[in-house]
């Protein structure tokens, strides 16, 4: 009997040995698939990052022109000698200052059309910068001073090498006479590229050289603040109730659970339509306000937070609950002293990921009017504003070529914020993580 057993065992071993090679090969292939997938996604990701940062580079510098500005009483159209109120300085004439300085450098330009081209070397925003300069420092009046002013976006693009001077003139945005002038200015050391600080401190503008992202950052901040202070407590409270208090095997509770899971999968634009109907049409809240944006994104983020929180609470071992109840804690003490602190890393991670998702959202905000041109930087929850992804969308649709770089630069800023939020999630998780 035992002899037969051995024989069959030998047989099995043979079979196994025969197939062993195949099994190893299969395993190697399986591993190779995984490595292939990861390297493919890394390839795409690095291509995306490289492409975006490469395109964004021109937006981080800005070309300035050095002009000798004559702040004479005549040019400013101010009466000589008196002290000026801020209002008088505000309404003085600054329009001609840069053009006159350019005409002085190029006295040979006399024809009206050429003069127009020449004065457009300077950004249309420069006159307002000069105005702010004079208001800040009225002693400039009556003096002549060399001042670096913003260059127009075409000049800026040329200085950054984005316009090829070897193209035939008809295909170039910078014409031959402009080339000569630029070369003269350059030879005079009147052209300089500087770090584009305005990009991070200014609001939106239709002139690429004046456009900044600070307004959108602040809009995003206000919107996210509303989303956070509403969705975090409400989401956690809902999850705690569903996990710890709600009766099990009750059809109504099951129905709520199914609906929450469904809500998490609803396309975000639907929440925008809901927000339009409820917050704007019913409650009469203003369009384009971060308050409404936050309320809409709150609806969108809530299911994500509830689901993440429930999973975190579920992962707290029952023994902790039983021990707490065993030493005489009430149910509420058990939850607030033991379950929630232990579940906190999971809750925070889920919430931050939910918030990061909301930060990148633009579709629902279209419905409530946040896809808008807003030049002023919002100061509160009711001021009209846009958010970062919307700013990217608006810039990508602008005809001026320099907006292509700005679009990519804005994407870089958004990516940095997303990266920081995810980093925060990891740090918090590491900090609060408890092993048992």
């Amino acid at each position: 009997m035992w002899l037969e057993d051995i024989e069959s065992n030998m047989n099995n071993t043979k079979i196994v040995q025969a197939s062993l090679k195949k099994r190893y090969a299969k395993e190697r292939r399986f591993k190779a698939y995984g490595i292939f997938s990861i390297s493919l996604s890394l390839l795409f990701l690095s291509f995306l990052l490289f492409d975006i940062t490469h395109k964004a580079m021109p937006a981080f510098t800005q070309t300035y022109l050095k002009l000798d500005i004559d702040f004479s009483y005549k040019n400013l159209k101010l009466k000589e000698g008196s002290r000026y109120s801020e209002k008088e300085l505000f309404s003085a004439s600054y329009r001609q200052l840069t053009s006159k300085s350019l005409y002085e450098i190029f006295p040979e330009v006399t024809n009206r059309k050429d003069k127009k081209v020449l004065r457009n070397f300077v950004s249309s925003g420069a006159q307002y910068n000069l105005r702010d300069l004079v208001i800040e420092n009225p002693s400039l009046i009556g003096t002549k001073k060399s001042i670096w002013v913003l260059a127009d976006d075409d000049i800026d693009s040329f200085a950054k090498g984005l316009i090829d001077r070897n193209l035939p003139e008809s295909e170039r945005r910078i014409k031959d006479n402009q080339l000569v002038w630029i070369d003269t200015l350059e030879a005079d050391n009147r052209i300089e590229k500087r770090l584009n600080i305005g990009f991070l401190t200014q609001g939106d503008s239709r002139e690429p050289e004046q456009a900044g992202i600070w307004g959108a950052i602040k809009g995003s901040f206000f919107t996210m603040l509303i989303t956070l202070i509403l969705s975090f407590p409400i989401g956690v409270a809902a999850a705690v109730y569903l996990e710890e208090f709600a009766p099990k095997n009750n059809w109504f509770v099951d129905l709520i659970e199914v609906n929450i899971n469904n809500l998490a999968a609803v396309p975000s634009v639907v929440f925008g339509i809901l927000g339009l109907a409820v917050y704007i049409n019913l409650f009469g809240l203003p369009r384009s306000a971060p308050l409404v944006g936050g309320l809409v994104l709150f609806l969108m983020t809530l299911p994500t937070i509830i689901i993440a929180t429930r999973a975190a609470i579920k992962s707290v071992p029952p023994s902790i609950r039983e021990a707490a109840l065993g030493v005489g804690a009430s149910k509420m003490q058990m939850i607030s002293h033991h379950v929630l602190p232990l579940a906190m890393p999971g809750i925070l991670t889920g919430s931050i990921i939910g918030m990061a998702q909301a930060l990148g959202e633009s579709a629902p905000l279209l419905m409530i009017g946040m896809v808008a041109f807003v030049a002023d930087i919002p100061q509160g929850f009711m001021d009209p504003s846009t958010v970062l992804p919307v700013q990217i969308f608006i810039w990508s649709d602008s005809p001026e070529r320099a907006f292509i770089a700005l679009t990519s630069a804005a994407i870089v800023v958004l990516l940095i914020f997303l990266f920081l939020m995810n980093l925060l999630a990891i740090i918090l998780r590491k900090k609060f993580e408890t092993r048992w």
Partner: protein
Amino acid sequence: MLTKKILTTSAVVAASFLTAPVQARDYIEIVGSSTVFPFATVVAETFGKKTGMPTPKIESTGSGGGMKLFCKGDGIDTPDITNSSRRIKMSEFEQCHKNGVTDITEVLVGFDGIAIANSRIGANFNALTRKSLYLALAAKVPASATGKTWNKEEMIDNPFTNWNEIDSNLPNVAIKVLGPPPTSGTRDALQELAVEGGCKKFPHMKAMKKTNSNEYKKLCRTIREDGKYVEMGENDNLIISKLVNDKNTLGIFGFSFLDQNAEKVKGADIDGSPINFENIASGDYPVSRPLYFYVKNSHRGKIRGMDEFINEFVDEDTFGEEGYLVDKGLIPSPEARRAQFTADGKNATNLKL
């Protein structure tokens, strides 16, 4: 304990927000056409910088969407101004009046040309006419145009696959056109001015306009859906980058984009008229459309800066021949009409249709 605190605080905050009375607006609210948007935003920004008043907020909702919001009511929660890349329709005007918006001023901003362009290194499409655009883009075309039958009434599914089948002067390349989706005003203009404009060249179609205008509109404006016309979304920059990669594909977009990308793409002549500033302004270039804005005059006293904003818009330095909107690609309207609309804007002349 902490959770409880957070809960109460957020509840109070939420309640106070929801019950807060709607504040009086201190900025101008503008909605409407995405074609007027690039121009209106420049004016808004200049107005804000010049006067120090809050910069108007401008939403790009499309002409139709803008009219709907504008005509919703007379209250302060409705927009003050709407932009439109076509004239207000009678039905919209009546809707406005029904909802209490009875004092409207119309201002013609200028014109916008629609470019039909391809890559600079691609084939030459200067022999394009509205008729050949119709034959290339319509879903159904008269069978007689194929030269195979003489039955003039018969309409067949568009059989053309190459441009030279339509007109031997056109290059022998496959028909592929990238253009805007139906939600866009540019698409409306393409359909009405180019495709319908070409359709009318067939006498029997022109006759149909009188006898059966619904069928006429359907036949003359429906764009083919067999993949020769590709909808690209409203992003004109995207269309241009596709044209660079595919040299014989045609793209359809606003003149300002052509103006900004002259080293990459070239605009085709239509009906022998090259697309340029002068031809669009004079009306020789056939595919151009008027741009308007409409002002709710009852808001002029209530919203700070309305009059100043409109004055800035109708200033010669803004929408005149040397104005800054021209630098942005706007085609100014003739002098006499500018003068009239400047007066209308300043005097808040009520629009009558």
